[in-house]
């Protein structure tokens, strides 16, 4: 009679093989479901525009330089930065921030850049106002309260470079014919892309958004000459 203490219970090799094979199929099916499920999450997760920290090299170079160590993230005192997740639109593990959630607070000592061991965040950046994380764009001219004729001005007031990066340009309100419209106007040569304006916009969905400079800005063909700028130069 067999007791519990028997060192080797007899196993039917064919049965064992069948069980093992069944488990392998189950696992293959499970892993497939897992990846498809993650893929579907990707669509949900990508809301908002993701920006790179101050001093980040241009995108192709950044992907080669950043070792995804997260030291910039851990040294950011405002918890602005996070690391991109598995299957997110930007490479897994690279540092990003979503200005609508938490903008960059423009630390004067730029701890994120100081923390970066690889140079993916360029140590040449010593003045945070020189950072170019993106550029703010008034993306929704239909719902911006200022363009509707109110005096919201919030994006303008929160800008760390008020009156330089963003100004209020005066136009006539053609609807009423007798009031003024104060249009928030961003100046790309000064705007750092910190996102404080986007963060502060009082609408449900911000009317002003920071976009990566590549997405936001056009580029003139080299054969265009802007006559008045050439006159200025001469």
């Amino acid at each position, binding site marked *: 009679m067999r007791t519990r203490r028997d060192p080797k219970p007899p196993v039917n090799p064919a049965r064992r093989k069948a069980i093992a094979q069944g488990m392998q199929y189950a696992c293959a099916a499970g892993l497939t479901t897992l990846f498809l499920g993650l893929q579907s999450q990707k669509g949900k997760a990508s809301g908002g525009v993701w920006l790179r920290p101050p001093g980040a090299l241009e995108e192709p170079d950044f992907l080669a330089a950043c*070792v995804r160590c997260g030291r910039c993230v851990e040294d950011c005192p405002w918890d602005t930065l996070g690391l991109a997740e598995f299957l997110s639109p930007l490479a897994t*593990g690279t540092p990003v921030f979503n200005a609508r959630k938490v903008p960059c607070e423009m630390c004067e000592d730029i701890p994120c850049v100081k923390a970066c061991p690889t140079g993916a965040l360029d140590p040449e950046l010593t003045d945070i106002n020189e950072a170019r994380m993106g550029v703010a764009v008034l993306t929704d001219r239909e719902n911006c309260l200022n363009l509707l004729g109110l005096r919201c001005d919030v994006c303008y007031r929160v800008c760390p470079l008020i009156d330089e990066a963003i100004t209020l340009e005066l136009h006539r309100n053609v609807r009423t014919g007798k009031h003024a419209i104060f249009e928030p106007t961003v100046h790309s040569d000064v705007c750092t892309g910190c996102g404080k304006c986007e963060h502060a916009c009082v609408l449900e969905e911000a009317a002003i958004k920071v976009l990566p400079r590549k997405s936001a800005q056009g580029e003139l063909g080299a054969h265009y000459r802007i006559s008045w700028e050439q006159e200025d130069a001469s």
Partner: protein
Amino acid sequence: MNPGVSQKAIQAKGFWRAQRWLLLRRLSQVLVLAMFASGPWLGVWILKGNLSASLLLDTVPLSDPLTLLQSMVAGHWPATMALVGGAIVLAIYLLLGGRLFCSWVCPVNLVTDAASWTRHRLNLPTRPGNPKGRYAVLAGVLLGAAATGSLVWEWVNPITLSIRVITLGSLTGLWMLLAIFLFDLVIRRDGWCGTLCPVGSFYALVNRFGWLKIRLPAREKCDDCMACYKACPEPQVIKIPLKDIGAEPVIRDPACTLCGRCVDVCPENVFEIGSRRKASEPLQTVEIKP
């Protein structure tokens, strides 16, 4: 990992001597995780970053040499702090033995050991993988970085993903760990670390020069109980030094992770952790019959 495999050793040498390297190893692995986690969770910064690059006690930079290598082939020359960190880490593993990383530091080992343990519990059949195929994966990771100009391995690297789970609470890394667990459980015993992981392969290359080796000073006492083969995550490394009387009784195969489990589970004390020095010529034993 094999439940029950240490029973005989525990009877022969007592609990501590039959489990000590395993327990010390677990302690070391948990300490590594704790040193990364204490910063973000308790504000006590010991290691900042993760296992691709970190800063120890706000002074000593550490970085993973393979990660830097990928960065270089992708077209970026890392800044000095990263290079110094890489040199420190490489020097440590070159001196001691590369795959110490796998058994004493890497958090994924906790997952693969758990899979291996479960596998033995369920008594699943074992099909050996190809232990050399791993170098193709390593080459693929470097070629991938060169071709795309990006550290593509970091997309799935379970080592940094698992550190991120504990430092930044990023849960998506858990999927990769689950996938590895299932792979090791059902498809191949110790398959991830033994045949796929490029980091393990890199450290196996470094392992060749390491000073620590498993020695078999008492191999003639082996009574073929097979405990070491069952416990070892890379069992192919044991056979020649143990059974080939002409071979040197030192495990020099770079796949050995220096986990010390063979030392633990052998009831006859065949193995020990020692230095790489050459073993003196195997003694010719002459049986003298009265």
